């Protein structure tokens, strides 16, 4: 149970970071929680990180709640709580980066929380939000569902206020379904405290986080790592085509699978691929490069002989 923490000036503040994919509603999640806090007379902010990422790409949103007016306008680098809307993000982004030592990790996963426990954390929680969303909302949109888990764990905002915020935001029919999903999540959230965790399962998540990366070998360092005197005039990039080191395959939720027996090697999948993910092998088959394929499904749709099927991506096995 998290209550408000004392900040440096004695003020109480709670900072939450939401990890999702573009289009999954991480920002809506943050906004609803902030709205609920405001309804209770607190002060709150909710905002996304701004970047070039599109539908499907890993994104973050932030929510900051305080008893007093908030003057900070910065992104949250050291959150008290981290929420992960999509388990496939775990192999891509280090979701625990900057998470405070006594912080809480909430993950949408069908697994039990001990898989995600770290020694330095206070609590880890999991909720099979995708299943709840599919059952009740009929779509794999987990943003409101996860707020149920958040309400269960943090005593900062009451469940009733979140319900009010949802009812204000959606029309009656959608609100009712979202509230139903929220309450189911509230009831079904699995919470594990560090003290109750078996020592052998502590830190198994650690090596998994360490491997999380969106880039291939040979990628330049992140933009924030550059010093002013390392930049070319006009920020010219001289390494042509170095975006190849960036793996957009992480955005994928459906995977094209080729049936070689039906394939006529016509190359239609290759020519219509907006992500240059197809390469021809020596036998003349076009094979997809999973580092780049975003899973749009154009190849399967356009294949003249129906040799490509889109299959659902599985949750990363390594956890």
């Amino acid at each position, binding site marked *: 149970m998290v209550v408000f923490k004392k900040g440096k000036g004695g003020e109480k503040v709670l900072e939450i970071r939401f990890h999702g994919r573009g289009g999954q509603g991480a920002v809506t999640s943050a906004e609803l929680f902030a709205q609920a806090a405001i309804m209770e007379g607190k002060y709150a902010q909710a905002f996304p990180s701004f970047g070039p990422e599109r539908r499907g790409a890993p994104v973050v949103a932030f929510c900051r709640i305080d008893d007093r007016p908030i003057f900070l306008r910065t992104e949250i680098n050291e959150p008290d709580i981290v929420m992960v809307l999509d388990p496939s993000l775990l192999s891509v982004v280090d979701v625990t980066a900057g998470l405070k030592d006594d912080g809480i990790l909430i993950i949408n996963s069908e697994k039990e929380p001990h898989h995600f426990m770290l020694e330095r954390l206070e609590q880890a929680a999991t909720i099979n939000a995708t299943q709840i969303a599919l059952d009740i909302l009929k779509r794999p949109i987990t943003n409101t569902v996860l707020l149920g888990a958040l309400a269960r764990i943090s005593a900062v905002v009451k469940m009733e206020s979140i319900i009010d915020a949802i009812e204000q935001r959606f029309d009656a029919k959608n609100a009712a379904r979202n509230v139903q999903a929220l309450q189911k999540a509230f009831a079904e959230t699995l919470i594990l405290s560090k003290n109750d965790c078996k020592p052998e399962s502590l830190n198994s998540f650690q090596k998994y986080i360490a491997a999380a990366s969106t880039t291939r070998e040979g990628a330049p360092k992140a933009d924030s790592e550059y010093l002013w005197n390392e930049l070319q005039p006009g920020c010219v990039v001289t390494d042509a085509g170095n975006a190849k080191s960036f793996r957009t395959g992480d955005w994928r939720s459906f995977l094209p699978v080729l049936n070689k027996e039906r394939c006529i090697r016509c190359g239609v999948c290759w020519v219509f691929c907006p992500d240059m993910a197809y390469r021809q092998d020596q036998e003349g088959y076009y094979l997809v490069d999973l580092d780049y394929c975003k899973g749009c499904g154009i190849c399967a*749709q356009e294949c003249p002989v129906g040799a490509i099927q889109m299959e659902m991506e599985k949750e990363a096995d390594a956890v």
Partner: protein
Amino acid sequence: MNDANVYAVKTLTKKEYFAPGHRSCLGCGEALAVRLVHKALGRNVITASATGCMEIVSSPFPLTSWEIPWIHVAFENAAAVAGGIEAALKVLQRKGKISDKKVSVVAMAGDGGTVDIGLQALSGAMERGHKFLYVCYDNEAYMNTGVQRSSATPFGAHTTTSPAGTVVPGQVTWKKNMPEIAVAHKIPYVATATPSYPLDLVNKIKKGIAADGPAYVHILSVCPTGWGIASEETIKFGRLAVQTGFFPLYEVENGKYKITVDFEELMPLEQYLLPQRRFRHLAEDTLGYIRGRVAEQWEELQKRSAE
């Protein structure tokens, strides 16, 4: 799927000048168009790009998807910068300061950067007669900032700044006919294209860059996010736009019109419009009006290409 596409796409070069790892949405028709355009242009090309989706997704510092010299300029002046590059190359080659190898100069922009913000610079560059190719990637709204209407947004389309309601059926003005504006400048080559017809697109780009003077190619780039269709339907909707006569494919070579993908009979317009979220509110009277204007536009084009 027309048969020519199935059996002939392999004739396109395997070489890519637009590298993977760019950050466009799933099923982005514009990224596909950029890829095919640069396949047609080859290696010896300098591209000036206006602000827009393609600038954002292809060049987040320190990464770039461009395998060719590419410069990002302001929203309004892609054509002016391309004109400047062309003039500089001409002078430097005449003075013998660089090799006289042929280098193509291309300007690219979205519909906002072409028909709204960049029109003045484009008109100026076409009027001055720079030998360059201008490619407009038209996704029919300001998609980069979250779907605001542009003057290339079709009549009746819902966007965040032309919302459809009980009184107003979305966008209330007809799509600005940019290819006709280019034709009015009496430039040697104007064409429309879409990546759903890849060979047609590649041929037009090659003709455009070989033309003796300014060339303009207007490419319909399907935007699944902004139009409200599934990501796998990008190619299908590009094809439907052509088959229903909503976006006819034609070229104008030295004033001579030619429909490059012709049909005896057009498909019903509803098949293209109603499955899209931006058009799903259309009532029968609005549909009738659109149908009338599309038919009129198609007849006019038929007449001109028969001349």
